[in-house]
């Protein structure tokens, strides 16, 4: 395969952008063109919950132009994503349908966690540098309009990630309500954010050592790229240089700053807020180095495309990040790591041997794994009401990399592991049923929580799933409980699970 041309489209809250890439095994994803069009969709959506007629027309016009540009480049494949501006419209499906009919472009909506995951991938698209910086404790600070996402990396793996509603637009809006003078910005922003940041520190950061901060944003990154403020190496800024820069920023009048930095004056307040935010986070983590790779969502989309189409060798295990994230959640709710691991192992063994029967893919396997990890997180709140509590915890905890729907599947699988299956469940009923069935069987095998089933082998034979357990312990309890659990499995797959104990002396 020679060179393929790919387009990534981001329908953002205040900007439409498209990047054209050339994908080749030799050069990876090479950016050929970057087209941006300023269109404030967010204001309409946030205020009225709908996108106005004019905005809609403009959006379609620009997207039609995008489609012309794609044609000119002979683009073979594209991916278009919309974020919060369309996500939060009450009639988003109508909007997307109109866009499809008028422009021919199919847009998918990203949930916050997916969007953040793509942002994270966009950083990862700077492969070597990304790998290098992760050698030390690193945080990614992804600053958006509505919220920011703080992610911590320890030893190359995502350790924790949390969404805080401290987006720059949101902060600015709050200031506007208060009618603050720019001079007071720093202090006020500080007050707004320090409480939340303190909680973050207590819950997640603890005494982790973070040396580097990777920043993904729209205000500081372009400046660093354009003016090379305190830059040692393309995109890298030492904390000292950054401090100097913010000091300069706060001393000068906004008019002068705009002139000096050659940016529109209206962007200055948001730049202030971003700079204070970052400064606070630096202090919180006591970091030494900033990296502003200047990547955008489009880079993440391209990276995902390259990953899916095996254009590049992906050396970072993103699935592991999602799993690690789930494990951390489990840990927070006092889940037993050992038990989770056992359950994980058993469910996956069953899943793999049932491949021909359930017909599910790699992604569902991951969901099952996460469900196994989080299978009893609800007991942190109530041992009695395990199903509902687990469901609620999962539904209100963001798991980076999972879409909203995927998270809902996980939450339901965990719920029906404990509660009766509700056949009127509307979202992806079948997947939930299949995964629940597997989880229930696995759970049944580990009833006593004593990890008696360390070594499990499963074989599909004559309509039976033979589960061979290599243990010398007494498994009367499991065998007894198993019938009940197996019934649902049988119903879903028409396969009967059978336990066989193999004793080795």
């Amino acid at each position, binding site marked *: 395969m020679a060179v393929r041309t790919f387009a990534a489209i981001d329908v953002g809250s205040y*900007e439409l952008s498209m990047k054209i890439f050339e994908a080749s095994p030799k050069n990876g994803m090479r950016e050929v063109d970057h087209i941006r069009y300023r269109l404030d969709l967010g204001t309409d959506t946030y205020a009225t919950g709908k996108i106005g007629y004019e905005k809609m027309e403009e959006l379609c016009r620009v997207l039609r132009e995008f489609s012309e540009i794609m044609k000119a480049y*002979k683009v073979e494949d594209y991916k278009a994503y919309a974020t919060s501006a369309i996500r939060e419209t009450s009639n988003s499906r109508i909007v997307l349908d109109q866009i499809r009919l008028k422009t021919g472009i199919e847009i998918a909506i990203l949930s916050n966690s997916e969007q953040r995951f793509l942002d994270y991938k966009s950083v990862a698209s700077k492969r070597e540098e990304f790998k290098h910086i992760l050698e030390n404790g690193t945080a990614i600070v992804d600053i958006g309009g509505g919220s920011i996402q703080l992610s911590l990396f320890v030893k190359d793996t995502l350790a924790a990630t949390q969404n805080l509603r401290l987006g720059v637009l949101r902060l600015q809006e709050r200031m506007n309500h208060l009618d603050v003078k720019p001079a007071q910005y720093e202090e006020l922003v500080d007050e707004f954010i320090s409480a939340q940041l303190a909680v973050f520190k207590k819950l997640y950061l603890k005494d982790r050592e973070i040396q580097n901060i990777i920043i993904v944003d729209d205000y500081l990154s372009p400046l660093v790229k354009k003016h090379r403020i305190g830059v040692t190496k393309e995109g890298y800024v030492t904390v000292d240089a950054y401090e100097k820069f913010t000091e300069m920023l706060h001393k000068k009048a906004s008019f002068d700053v705009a002139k000096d930095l050659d940016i529109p004056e209206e962007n200055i307040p948001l730049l202030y807020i971003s700079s204070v935010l970052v400064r606070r986070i630096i202090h919180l983590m006591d970091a030494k180095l900033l990296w502003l790779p200047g990547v955008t969502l489009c880079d993440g989309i391209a990276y995902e495309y390259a990953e899916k189409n095996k254009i590049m060798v992906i050396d970072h295990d993103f699935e592991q990040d999602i799993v690690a994230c789930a494990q951390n959640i489990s840990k927070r709710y006092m889940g037993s790591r050992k038990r989770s691991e056992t359950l994980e192992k058993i469910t996956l063994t069953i899943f793999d041997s049932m491949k021909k029967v359930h017909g599910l893919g790699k992604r569902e396997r991951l969901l099952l794994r996460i469900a196994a990890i989080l299978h009893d997180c609800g007991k942190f709140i109530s041992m009695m009401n395990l199903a509902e509590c687990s469901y609620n915890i999962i539904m209100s905890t963001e798991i980076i990399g999972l879409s909203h729907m995927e998270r809902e599947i996980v939450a339901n699988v965990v719920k029906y592991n404990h509660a009766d299956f509700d056949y009127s469940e509307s979202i992806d009923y079948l997947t939930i049923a299949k995964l629940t069935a597997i989880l229930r069987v696995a759970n049944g095998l580990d009833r006593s929580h004593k990890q008696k089933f360390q070594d499990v082998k499963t074989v599909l034979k004559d309509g039976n799933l033979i589960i061979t357990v290599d243990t010398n312990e007494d498994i009367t309890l499991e065998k007894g409980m198993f019938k009940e659990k197996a019934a649902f499995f049988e119903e879903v797959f028409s396969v009967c699970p059978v336990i066989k104990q193999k004793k080795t002396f």
Partner: protein
Amino acid sequence: MADNFKNPEYYTNREMSWVLFDNRVLSEAKDKKIPLFERLKFLSITSSNLDEFFMVRVASLKDMVNAGYTKKDISGKTPIEQLAMLDEATHELVKSQYSTYKKSLLPQLLQNGLRVIEHHEQLSEDEQKFVDRYFMDNVYPVLTPMAVDSSRPFPLIRNKSLNIGALVSKKSGDKTFEFATVQVPSVLPRIIPIPSEKEGEKAVILLEEIIERNIDKLFLNYDIICAHPFRIMRNADLTIEEDEAEDLLKEIERQLKKRQWGEVIRLEVEDGIDKKLLKILKSELMINEEGIYRIDGPLDLTFLMKMYGMEGFDHLKTPKYTPQPVPELPAGEDIFAQIRKGDILLHHPYQTFTPVVDFIRQAAKDKDVLAIKQTLYRVSGNSPIIAALAQAAENGKQVTVLVELKARFDEENNIVWARKLEKAGCHVIYGLVGLKTHSKITLIVRKEEDGIRRYVHLGTGNYNDATAKLYTDVGMLTCSEAIGEDATAVFNMLSGYSEPLTWNKLAVAPLWLKKKFIYLIEREEKYALEGKGGHIIAKMNSLCDRDVIAALYKASAAGVKIELIVRGICCLKVGIPGISENISVRSIVGNFLEHSRIFYFENAGKSEIYCGSADWMPRNLERRVEILFPVENEGLKEKLMHILEGQLKDTEKAHLLNAEGVYEKVDRRGKVLYNSQDTFCEEAILAAKEKKENENHRIFVPETHHE
């Protein structure tokens, strides 16, 4: 301290500087060393220049005066003061034009066998018969005589048209006179050849003389009391000149009613015109005494350009120069392959413009080309570029063309071919709101084996194959990835998308260009102060931006050597003690119109050279889309340096600005005579010949390897 450099006393008024420029062109018409017919051409140019100057600059000043606008210009003068100065200077200029024509050129023409009959009264009997016959056959049918009386109002006299005004009185009437006028038709040739009685001599007479002689035939029932040609210039430019402060526009909008559109700002009449006739013209056209130019000779000297075209005088003209082929681009070769070998510099008109046309032509046919994008400012009537673009669109390429409709005096022309392009399927952008697109850039996107490659042409001159034979310009063909990315960004911006986050190589006005120039100048200043020396050579058409000039003064004061080659307006003064002693300004006025913009900065030994579409004028740096591009290839840099050095060496066509604000020809004593334009011509011929000879070598190369 910085403001000190902006002291108005340190600046020349730009209009006055323009008059000086026109005088330099006029001096070419006076130069006896120049072939006679070339001198006619120069005189004609001074005349058309002056017309444009009136319609645009003087008109604009009058607008300001009418609007009560009193803001001072760069040299600290109010519009009223400027107009007063200009009146004097332009009258002087016109006087000089006609004395050149009558005292120098006419006698010379006669000596060389061309008799220009100045007045119909000088015709011989046979000649009279000929012109009368000519009048009845050719002229009479197209004339529209108009008389004025109580029932017929004063007619609209068209801008720039030549007319004959007369006083007539009814044969049967009471001897009171009336005004009558007839326009000298512009559809007929102005110069009418007459059969000459002398062997080897040609004779010509101007159309208005023939009409004047026969004017009685137009007003049959009248007696003609007198008849004289006249010509007016109107404030016809409805757009406010962009160089003025923006608040002017608001001011005029507010006072819109006060302004008289199409107000007459200049009246040219024959010297010795009947007083009563002049009085009527004066009151009807509402013009004051300062606006009246009494002319001793034919009005509107632009007819001399037609005279230049007369056959049989080739020995009195400079031999025609044929632009030479570019050695790096042999005809018939794949132009893209040649560009991939390295950047190519084009120097027009010494080198032919054909490669630029071929660049687009080849792209139109090339199956690998995805898109062609180009900015077009002024294009020749039958442009091969337009044809190639249209063909490309028909071949399914994505063609985007930015057509600048605001190019002065060219609007109609532009609209016609813009429509043509649209019909062919091109995406046409009709300029940007509030900005003129002056940049000259072409981008060709090609999908090659190893991915997309972009080919870019950047130039200092318009994509106009006709003017490329007369204007000196440079252009560069490159497929550098960095410039390609920037070029894509430029077109994205021109299509209404956001500016790119960063530029690799290009600097673009109105957003970044001025800052870039100031930065480059200040960098030289810094080096000079550090004792590392500083040197700037800049070649452009006009220099009148206050900020840039102040920066130059500051740099000069710091010890930077600044050599400027400014063809036209220059508001900078040289030789001001402590301010501009290290600055020299020269202007080259030659056969070709100097048009290229090249900027050299020494940069403490790591010299940088830029070319671009912008002059150092506020309008170029602030209200136009302009591009400045660096030339980084060492070979190409040398070529550009050679151009600059050649112009600095010029002893023939260069005028030096002195501390009194006067331009003087270079003092040739002790210098080798050097005409830069001629030398560049010779060098281009030589380079093309060498290339050809190398190709025609007659040594056979035996094949040594056989499969």
